């Protein structure tokens, strides 16, 4: 009896592997639904769900509905590895969507590569992410490009000669942007007069800012995430620093202005998309998003939507719903008109597209200029 019990107990995991039903396509998503940058994961999830619900309402792909399985990695690298392993080995997904943060995409990508499951990151901009293997894609531009965009904007539009950098030293994304910004600004004739760092989770930045103030830069580049940037802006204002603050897409959250209040107004950051765009594709996306959720999509929601759309289109083109065939079709994506602009996937599995620079004005961001690759 006891033997039988254990036999059943141990065969349960095997059985669960067989529950994969033939009438649905299982797609996995992992993201930070809780944790320090939870709004990233939640926004992305809204975009992805919109794309998948839309295709399901139209009858799905090849007559099969898509089932989205979303797991929370709590914003932690180790957790990302675990949930992606679970998505692939237990939930039997054919493709994985995620993550926003480059460090978590990098942690999880080797798993997807090992099991040969295509993974599309909606907004991890660190160059290393897609170098992990031929199954790893992204639908956003990469850090060198964002660093280049802000360096070009600083030097051409703001006429910055001396810039300071304040980077999040534990974050691949932030370090990547800072390095490229520094190199490109020097090429354009500017100089970096201070390069300081902080760590995500810090609340006090006055030491670094006092140091920067003494060097009197024309602008400060802070390629961090909104939670810290809001506080940094306030403390910079407290110390009497009035030069423009510059940043990247990690600033893209309505919380930025809630935390930074008027101190962050007037700061510039590069982004994937602006809700002010007049492009009909973008307007259409915004209308549908608002109808479903009642609020305006941020950049991350738009990226999530585009990532899911590119996956859906690849699955439609593929002969069969098999991970390797889907991979090949994703790689062929060309001139896809997405909510974040025209996207082509290049030979490095990175997206080629333009970036916008926006200026923070209270809760909304004002479109300033578009910078092309």
């Amino acid at each position, binding site marked *: 009896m006891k033997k039988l019990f254990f036999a059943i107990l141990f065969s349960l995991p095997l059985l669960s592997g067989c529950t994969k039903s033939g009438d649905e396509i299982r797609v996995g998503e992992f993201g930070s639904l809780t944790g320090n940058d939870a709004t990233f994961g939640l926004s992305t999830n809204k975009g992805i769900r919109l794309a998948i619900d839309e295709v399901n309402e139209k009858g799905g792909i090849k007559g099969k509905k898509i089932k989205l399985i979303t797991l929370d990695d709590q914003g932690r690298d180790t957790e990302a590895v675990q949930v992606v392993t679970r998505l692939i080995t237990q939930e039997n997904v054919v493709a994985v969507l995620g993550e926003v943060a480059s460090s978590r995409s990098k942690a999880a990508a080797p798993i997807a590569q090992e099991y040969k499951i295509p993974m599309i990151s909606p907004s991890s901009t660190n160059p290393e992410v897609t170098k992990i293997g031929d199954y790893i894609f992204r639908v956003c531009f990469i850090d060198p490009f964002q660093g280049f965009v802000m360096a070009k904007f600083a030097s051409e539009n703001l006429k910055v000669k001396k810039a300071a950098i304040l980077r999040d030293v534990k974050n691949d994304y932030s370090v990547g942007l800072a390095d490229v910004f520094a190199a490109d600004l020097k090429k354009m004739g500017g100089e970096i007069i201070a390069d300081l760092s902080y760590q995500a989770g810090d609340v006090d930045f006055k030491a670094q800012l006092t*140091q920067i103030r*003494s060097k009197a830069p024309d602008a400060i580049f802070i390629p961090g995430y909104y939670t810290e940037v809001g506080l940094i802006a306030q403390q910079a204002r407290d110390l009497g620093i009035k030069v423009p603050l510059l940043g990247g897409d990690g600033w893209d959250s309505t*919380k930025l202005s809630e935390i930074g209040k008027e101190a962050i107004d007037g700061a510039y950051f590069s982004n994937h998309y602006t809700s002010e765009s007049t492009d009909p594709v973008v307007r259409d996306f915004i209308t549908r998003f608002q109808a479903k959720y009642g609020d305006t999509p941020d950049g991350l929601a738009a990226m999530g939507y585009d990532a899911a759309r590119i996956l859906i289109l690849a699955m439609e083109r593929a002969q069969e719903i098999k991970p390797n065939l889907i991979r090949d079709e994703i790689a062929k994506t060309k001139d896809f008109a997405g909510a974040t602009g025209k996207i082509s996937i290049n030979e490095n599995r990175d997206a080629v597209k333009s970036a916008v620079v926006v200026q923070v004005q209270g809760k909304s961001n004002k479109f300033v200029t578009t910078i092309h690759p």
Partner: protein
Amino acid sequence: MQDFVQHLVNGLSLGSIYALIALGYTMVYGILQMINFAHSDVYMVGAFAAYYAAKWLGIENQPGLMSLATLLVVSMVACALLGLTIERLAYRPLRKAPKLNILITAIGVSLFLQYAGQLVFGADPKVFPEVMPDITFFQWGDLSLRSSDFTVLIVALLAMVGLHFLIHHTKIGRAMRAVSQNSSVAAMLGVNPDRIVAMTFVVGSSLAGVGSVLVGMKYPKIEPLMGMMIGLKAFVAAVLGGIGSIPGAVLGGLLMGLSEEMVVAYLSSTYRDALAFGILIVILLLKPAGLLGRYQVEKV
């Protein structure tokens, strides 16, 4: 020179926050010889209590003394109740158990509060209401001093003096010291140790409540994991000052804040924590009981 004074002010202001939290650690340790790791999470709950109270009372956008007083009271009461509950449910049943058990329980309670906090309050950061207008009251060239920098320092010093008075000059303080020396003898002499320990938690936790409102004013971003890093640093500050010693906690906190600030200012911002903690290790190597700690003879 102006920069140096600015760094000094920044460091003292940051250090006074560590000091305020460190007082809670050191107080419980002084009476119970246990490290209450949940202290920094009680502090987090205090911040959220004040946040929701401000929303509910509609005083989010009415900075002033009245709002400050209200939120301080709310937060202190919430923290005291929580501290009391934790003591009653988690620590009291283990009073007679080996010290290690109660330490591990404290870590468990801390994790419980952090993750329950994410579930109840949501994990995304919230913006703490503006309680007091923060003004620049002194400007000299580049040097600017803000009122919030000094409020925390003054409150930490007041709390230190108050606690010292409570423990050394009141009846309940004498009972606390008696329980800390030998709880069964104290019980024989008519002190109710359970009540005294509960009292210790009430006082220690209300201090966390005060801290949470003051820190919320200064750094208006609160989230369920906010206690983790500040708690760790406050704990180190308490050890540095000599755990169990009340002036030691304040001294340790201020030193901790200053060393972090000065490392960034004159050495390297990348290795801030490594160097700041390195300095502390050196101090502890020279004075293992902490700056103001007393060496205790182990009874065999």
